[in-house]
């Protein structure tokens, strides 16, 4: 069994973010592995613990992201792939999916696991796109994964707390929800061993791609925090007075 876990490094949940142009100002903030992806990694490691499996982690990101890969190796992944080129800064989901697909194509993974979405961009696109590029059956938002006889049975979370059970033949790609397992800590010994595990750094051309073919189609125009309180008007007075004013406003604005 060979499993690929794709993970992304995102700003730490407690980081103070400042928007600058199309993205946040990355200087001086701490990063961590995207929450959703940690569950995907844990699921892969559980499969490895239960039988034989090689777990490969891959990320697309600058130098700082090797820290996330080391952590994953410390938790028990076997090797890591880091893909980067400065032209990839601000890459859209399709670009990311193309790069991951190129890295995965000759590896014949039996299973690709990743988070449902990233904590920072919230797109939920990379998983399904990658599956399509690799020609793999896929499903999203897994709450439970069971493997047997060359297939995966997946419980997915739907709106309103209902669950859907789907079967997929292996190889396949599954994106996972948070909470489907309890994510382990990297042990000290694991972290020390991680130092000796392979971490392959690759550029776009190492993947046999050219920059134009993977250029992003989506550009972010602006990232900002909406100013609070704009357009809000606070009505004052007793409950009766406020109610009366409110009715007046509703009529005035023709809302009813």
């Amino acid at each position: 069994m060979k499993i690929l876990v794709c993970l992304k490094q995102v700003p730490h949940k407690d980081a103070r973010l400042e928007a600058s142009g199309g993205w946040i100002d990355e200087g001086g903030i701490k990063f961590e592995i995207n929450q959703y992806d940690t569950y995907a990694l844990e699921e892969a490691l559980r499969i490895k613990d239960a039988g034989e499996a090689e777990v490969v982690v891959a990320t697309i990101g600058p130098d700082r992201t090797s820290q996330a890969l080391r952590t994953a190796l410390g938790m028990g992944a076997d090797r890591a792939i880091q893909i980067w080129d400065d032209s990839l800064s601000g890459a859209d989901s399709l670009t990311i999916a193309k790069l991951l697909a190129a890295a995965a194509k000759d590896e014949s993974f039996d299973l690709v696991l990743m988070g449902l979405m990233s904590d920072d961009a919230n797109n939920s696109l990379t998983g399904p796109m990658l599956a399509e590029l690799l020609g793999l059956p896929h499903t999203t938002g897994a709450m439970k994964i069971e493997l047997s006889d060359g297939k995966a049975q997946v419980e997915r979370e739907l709106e309103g707390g209902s669950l859907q059970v789907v079967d997929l033949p292996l190889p396949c790609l599954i994106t996972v929800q948070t909470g489907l397992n309890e994510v382990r800590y990297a042990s000290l010994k694991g972290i020390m061993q991680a130092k000796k595990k392979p971490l392959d750094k690759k550029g776009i051309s190492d993947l046999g791609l050219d920059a134009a073919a993977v250029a992003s189609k989506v550009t972010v125009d602006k990232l900002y925090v909406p100013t609070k309180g704009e357009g809000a008007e606070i009505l004052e007075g007793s409950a009766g007075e406020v109610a009366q004013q409110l009715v007046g406003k509703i009529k005035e604005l023709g809302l009813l």
Partner: protein
Amino acid sequence: MIEWSEEHLAFRDALRRFIDAEIVPNLEELEHGDTPPYDVLRKLYSTFGLTEMQRSRGEAVVAASRKADEARARGEEPARRQRQPGGNVDAMAMQLLLIKELCRFCPGMVTAMGVSTGLTGGALISKGTTAQKERWLTPILTLEKIGAWAITEPGSGSDAFGGMKATACRDGDGYVLNGNKTFITNGPYADTIVFICKLDEGDDTPQRDRRMVSFVLDRGMPGLTQSKPMRKMGLHSSPTGELFLQDVRAGRDRLIGESESAYGRGGAKETFGMERTGVVAMTLGMVERCLELCTAYAKERVQWDKPIGEYQLIQLKLAKMEVARMNLENLLFRQIELAGAGRSPTLAEASAGKLYAAQTCMEVMLEGVQLFGGNGYMAEYQIEQLCRDAKVMQIYAGTDEIQITHIARELLRD
């Protein structure tokens, strides 16, 4: 070493995740109540594979000790352990990181852990016989059993060696022990106690000049009483207590090194060096946390329509804290480098580091409270606890005044 490596940071991040999940939610009970720290420390050990590592370490110490005995039996000089240059860097860095990270929230917890594994375990490793190591060492290193190391008495602290009243009298092939110890970390809960006293040979040698000996005692031995935790200013996640010994009978198998000259001043001094080194890592964790809390508060707290961080008097406090943090970190990196080179700091160097660390930490915490104003004085804000905890750094492991005398003695030596 000029920077933490990727592996060090990975360990730090994993520790922070554990601390956020297991310690921070219980900080109130740990730091304002009487909840002993041992269960969460054991959980920390098992989570990070430290229990297994410590078990292997204990077993390796026993095996090496046995080999040395065999060599001596053949009339050979036992081979000294070869230290691999560089090999200790990671081990030392990880150990100090663990101390530093825990101290961001619970300096007491580190005290409890350090006294048990470092001082009690350390005494057995350096001076115990093979049989004593086999009997007590591994469970202490893994925290399965809690250790205490008792030298201070109601009448002797700084002058612990000279002023000590506790005695051991020979009795048949064993000893009878008497005396009281106070301020003993883990005293109330300890399973295994290293008890340091004077050998009373029944002659008229003044007590001050009598030879020091030490024993390993077990909880529940007849005549041994362990007090309840003492009330104190801070450091609540480290229980501190008194020990009362009344005619406690101890066989020769409990005499450390099974020799009346094994664990004298040299043994205890070695222990002091280790304690003093640990304080640098402790204070770095506390100062780092204080700086984090203070920068956030300086940006958030508004007076006269401006965040207080825009006032230069507040900026001065923050800048000084950062200078302290950098100095402490560099001291720590030096310790790691020394370990990597297979060297330990001299006692004077360890004292200088400890003195600087303790005083700096106290100054930083007081300024931290000041920066928080009234909120700084309220227990709801963590800075209040850190400030109370900082004071002990200037008292235990040798007071500031005693560190100064050790540094000066070295400087003035002929």
